[in-house]
């Protein structure tokens, strides 16, 4: 019987979020990154919990869900390999506003919010570079919300 080889460890610098970034920010962040693996159905994030990390997805798929009182929860978007998850740790109060659930086996790197925030605050150029990468993600989510509001595929 042949042993299944363990997958190669994930490298922060390989994630599209950091690709092409000049300077040493990825190198400074790399020691903070924690590799995680989630099985189908595992919760990555729960609404109401403290937003304490930034997640870089490498493989798999995660559903972003809204919990509605007295109604079934609704998936408003899925994100997958190459995408990022969670910016609530940047904004006070640092609290998750959505649930995130793995709908496929998912591998990711997680950066803890406190040292990440401290590093971004310590050097404005780090913070600016990081926000320039994060803003398109926020804009894409906003576009998605606008399309949902327009209900383009509806009647």
């Amino acid at each position, binding site marked *: 019987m042949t042993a299944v080889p363990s997958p190669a460890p994930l490298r922060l610098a390989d994630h599209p979020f950091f690709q092409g970034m000049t300077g040493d920010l990825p190198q400074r962040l790399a020691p903070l990154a924690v590799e995680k693996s989630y099985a189908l159905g595992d919760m990555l994030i729960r609404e109401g919990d403290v937003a304490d990390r930034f997640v870089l997805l490498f493989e798999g798929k995660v559903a972003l*869900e809204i919990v509605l009182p007295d109604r*079934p*929860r*609704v*998936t408003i978007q*899925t994100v997958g390999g190459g995408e990022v998850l969670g910016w609530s740790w940047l904004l006070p109060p640092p609290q998750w506003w959505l649930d995130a659930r793995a709908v496929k086996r998912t591998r990711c790197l997680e950066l803890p919010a406190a040292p990440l925030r401290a590093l971004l605050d310590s050097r404005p150029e780090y913070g600016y570079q990081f926000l320039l990468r994060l803003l398109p993600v926020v804009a894409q989510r906003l576009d998605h919300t606008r*399309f949902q509001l*327009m*209900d383009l*595929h509806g009647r």
Partner: protein
Amino acid sequence: MVARSMPSAVPEPPGASPWVPVPFRVEQRAAETSDTITLVLSPPKGVPATPFAPGQFNMLYVFGVGEAAISVAGDPAHPETLIHTVRSAGKVSSALSQASPGTTVGVRGPYGTGWPVAAARGKDVVLVAGGLGLPPLRPVLYELLRHRELYGRIEVIYGARTPKDLVYYNQIQEWRGRSDLRFQTTVDAAGREWYGDVGLVTARVPDIRIDPANTVAFLCGPEIMMKFTAQALEAKGMTDASIYVSLERNMKCAIGVCGHCQLGPEFVCRNGPVFLYKDVRRYLSVREL
């Protein structure tokens, strides 16, 4: 301003007046979703099958109610029956949705330009459908798969409002099971029973694997969806000279005479509904046109 003369003579299909509907019989009616059905229509005895090109449409007439333009959704290799998928939205489409087997529907056409499937030979092909944009693209997919060896990679992205709004559900499962085709579905919102993608069709575009310089894309759906999808394809390296869109306007005569469907200098019924994006993109940015 682009000058275009009115047609000097109405193009007349051989052996028939373009103004007179032919009475077809409804052979089958199948529910696709809560508001969308597929009709299978057969011509009267003695009337030959009418060949159609992928992307063309018929004018379907419900006697005493009115007429509507509906794209042909069947297999071009089997024109002996006409297949149309109709969403109940207005007076005529609601009446068509209720047409039961054995009843009669008037048919004119097929009309309009088709998707340039032959021009895609030797190239990668991207099909992007939003909502009821899949039925007009289904004949293209039949053609591509019938001559699979003539084309490069085939990428299909289909977006709908919710999982319950996906048409041709069983056929999509077949297509998704094929190794020579990549068929992605995405919905605007879903419950926990859905393990597929949730998001815009445009969000799936960066993930497609194509050679942008040797790819043809066919887009069909709400115009704003096509506009943003074309933008995403251009960001991927394609140009507007290899992207085609199917436009929907208020078709009445269907033969380029009445002007109800006019968009700038184009009569959508006669010069379209399929257009090269390069030729019409400026009209899609004109406010309130």
